[in-house]
């Protein structure tokens, strides 16, 4: 099996050893399709190895610095003690949501609650439990989207995932209450957490999902998540990702969305903290009339690194897509944006839009942006834009002239800069909370703390910028 002419690095070696040792364990309780998928992904991984920054799609993200760390790929499940919201207080104030959680890569719930059907017919639970219960759904959707734009790390999560979240919204079900998925890593040793999620929305269904990636200590870790989202005809998903992890942790979020006719996806990625974060968003518009609205905000400082990779494939005519990613980079933070709009031959009447705006606040911050267009159809409207710049000096002057101190004026303008993206968040309570977090983040007050990262549960004192009225 082992490919002899390839030299593996430390992490690769430990992943290969882990798979070979724990093969039976990983495949326990899994259907033949999943067992086969694991094996295929593993073979693929052995062939390609982990991606490095010499790969075109990984340029400028120095992922290989992680490869010589000793991440433990195996971690036993933790028994259920109390609900995640009690331990971590991750509920967001005023945001009424059904909370599910993952701890160290395992679905975290009381015994016997591995898979539940909520009152409007929504099914949520562990992916391992679900594949036993819904084999026909897995036959149809599992691994179906995983084939494009794959790389070594997605192969790893596909081969080695222990658990993950399964969400199924049956045809015609519009889920009123949003779902909140809290993913937490909390262990004392260095860990690599591989997990895999499958989200299926049937015809005419609707779902709002908030996906939080948090860490609650300062231990280094490597979180590698692979998510497949299937949108049936006329289905609609709102997907919010909130990322606030420690500076020692690396996070890779690969999300693949497949959309059928007239379906709508709305994604909002808010990145507040993290040592190295890479969000891969791959959207395939496969049915006419499908729409994808992809947005992101990143506020990085220290030596944090953010990498947003967005790939939209217009495979059929009459689809629309929009990408808007904005970010502020301070201190020694580095950022990468790689947007790609692909319009296939004969995908006429395509409307695709892409924009990336960046503000660099310090002389040592860096941004690499690559807004690509690849177009093979002629009746299209496609545009893209990218800017790198500073805050508008004139606007700053205007504010200062009215007695607003420089620092506050700065914050106000940065806040306004991000508002274009946060304004697109449809759930009011969530929007105001995220806006508050951004305010805190801009003021440097949002950091990860001992017990809880976000203090979401506490009624928040209204946050306003301090404007010294006496000077106005």
């Amino acid at each position: 099996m082992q490919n002899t002419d390839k030299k593996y690095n430390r992490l690769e070696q430990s992943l290969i050893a882990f798979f070979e040792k724990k093969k039976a364990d990983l495949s326990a309780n899994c259907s033949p399709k999943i067992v086969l998928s694991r094996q295929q992904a593993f073979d693929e991984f052995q062939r390609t190895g982990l991606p490095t920054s010499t790969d075109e799609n990984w340029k400028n993200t120095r992922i290989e610095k992680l490869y010589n760390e000793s991440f433990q790929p195996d971690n036993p499940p933790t028994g259920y003690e109390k609900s995640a919201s009690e331990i971590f207080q991750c509920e967001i104030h005023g945001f009424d949501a059904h909370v599910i959680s993952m701890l160290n890569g395992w679905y975290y719930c009381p015994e016997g609650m591995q898979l539940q059907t909520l009152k409007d017919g929504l099914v949520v639970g562990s992916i391992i439990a679900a594949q036993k219960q819904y084999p026909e759904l897995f036959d149809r959707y599992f691994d179906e989207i995983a084939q494009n734009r794959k790389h070594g790390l997605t192969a790893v999560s596909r081969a080695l995932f222990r658990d993950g979240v399964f969400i199924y919204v049956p045809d015609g079900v519009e889920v009123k209450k949003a779902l909140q998925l809290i993913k937490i890593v909390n262990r004392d040793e260095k860990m690599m957490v591989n997990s895999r999620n499958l989200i299926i929305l049937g015809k005419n269904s609707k779902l709002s999902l908030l996906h939080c990636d948090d860490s609650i200590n300062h231990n280094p870790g490597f979180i590698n998540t692979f998510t497949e989202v299937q949108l049936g005809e006329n289905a609609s998903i709102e997907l919010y990702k909130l990322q606030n992890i420690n500076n020692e942790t690396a996070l890779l979020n690969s999300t693949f969305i497949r959309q059928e006719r007239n379906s709508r996806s709305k994604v909002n990625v808010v990145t507040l903290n993290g040592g190295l974060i890479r969000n891969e968003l791959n959207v395939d518009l496969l049915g006419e009339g499908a729409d994808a609205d992809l947005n992101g905000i990143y506020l990085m400082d220290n030596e944090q690194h953010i990498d947003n990779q967005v790939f939209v494939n217009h495979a059929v005519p009459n689809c629309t897509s929009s990408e808007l990613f904005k970010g502020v980079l301070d201190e020694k933070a580095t950022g990468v944006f790689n947007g790609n709009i692909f319009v296939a031959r004969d995908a006429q009447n395509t409307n695709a839009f892409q924009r990336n705006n960046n503000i660099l606040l310090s002389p040592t911050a860096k941004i690499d942006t690559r807004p690509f267009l690849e177009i093979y159809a002629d009746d299209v409207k496609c545009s893209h834009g990218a800017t790198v710049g500073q805050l508008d000096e004139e606007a700053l002057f205007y504010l200062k002239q009215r007695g607003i101190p420089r620092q506050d004026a700065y914050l106000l303008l940065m806040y306004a800069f991000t508002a274009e993206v946060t304004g697109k968040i449809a759930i009011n309570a969530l929007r105001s909370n995220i806006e508050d977090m951004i305010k805190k983040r801009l003021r440097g007050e949002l950091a990860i703390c001992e017990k809880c990262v976000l203090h979401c549960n506490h009624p928040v004192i209204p946050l306003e910028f301090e404007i010294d009225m006496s000077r106005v």
Partner: protein
Amino acid sequence: MKDESGKNGVLEEVTSGDYKYGFVTNIETETAPRGLNEDTIRFISAKKNEPDWMLEFRLTAFRHWLTLTEPAWAHIEYPVIDFQDIIYYAAPKKKKEFESLDEVDPELLDTFNKLGISLEEQKKLSGVAVDVVMDSVSVKTTFQDTLAKHGIIFCSFSEAVRNHPGLVKKYMGTVVPYRDNYYAALNSAVFSDGSFCYIPEGVRCPIELSTYFRINAANTGQFERTLIVAEAGSYVSYLEGCTAPQRDENQLHAAIVEILAMDDAEVKYSTVQNWYPGDKNGKGGVYNFVTKRGLCKGRNSKISWTQVETGSAITWKYPSCILRGDNSVGEFYSVAVTNNHQQADTGTKMIHIGKNTRSTIISKGISAGKSNNSYRGLVQVAKKADNARNFSQCDSLLLGDKCGAHTFPYIKTANSSAIVEHEATTSKISEDQLFYCQQRGIDMEKAIGLIVNGYAKEVLKQLPMEFAVEAQKLLAITLEGSVG
């Protein structure tokens, strides 16, 4: 190579090959054996009577080339090139001469007429024996005199190696080192000839220098090398290429152009490239892999690239500017048209190193038929490049539903005072405009030519006068038959 063609250089210069379509390798005397090894390089160097240091340079480049692999990142597809199946040196021999224009391929003549080339010139371009060698020698001498008066050196690269070794040694390979990329290494090893141009301090070159037709070396072959050095305070406008279609038997072209601009110097480099694009089914055509780079070495220097790319089956070309001097300026204006099965991956690199450097990129891509046209450009702002400013605009126009238009901009910014803007649009030719033209009795083909010219005007107006007129006609001709 030069010796043979020196007498009637003009004749050789324009027609670099057989007049037949496709590629017929002209194997005659003075040909290096097929294939590439150190002996081939020694052979080339010996044929050209080069000094030892030049041979050494070639060999070092060759040894480095052996360690490289062909780049595969560009958005182009072509069969694997067998570098051992190429003849790297063939001294240009006398061309087969025709008795009169009647013998010349009528399609070629048709194109000449559309371009508005005079009958006399047509004869020369197509290789008809002309009795009166239309003053080519005298014209050449007149220009040479003018240039000499200003102290400007403008000669073939081989001549420069012989007569100005100090200058060549000092500047060759400083902007595009042989280690730069695969094709640069190949060129450095086997380059045939090219032009050398040196503008002394404070001199404003009174005429537009051209490698085509006017003064310079003929048939520089497939591995051309150009070096332009503009000393402090000088100015030169340099034209390369030819609007007339060139039937060239060389399938692979790998050229290098290096430009150095010292304090307050300005170099304007304009290219019109119209090599054989292959037939309507994508058979044949020139592979054009070019490394062009300018170094704004001094303060307030400026380098401006203007290119009109209509030919070649494959274009792989990124004329770049390294803005090292403070306040230096880089410009890139490009129109790239692809039709039938042509593929172009072209763009620029603007590398801001000095303070207060500025760059502008205007790129217009037009694709028709089954072609693919990509813009690929890098804007990089180094850490110390305070107040760097870039504006890029890359528009693509699609004519037909089987072609592709792609934009691959790379923006790397490591300085917080930089302002970098990129915008791009892709759209098809406006139905309204077409309808308007047709309604007024302008036929479809002419209407497209008109609209495309309007679309590319921003770039075309950067071209020197004599090129601009021909380039406009060229755009229309390239797009002929693209209307379904």
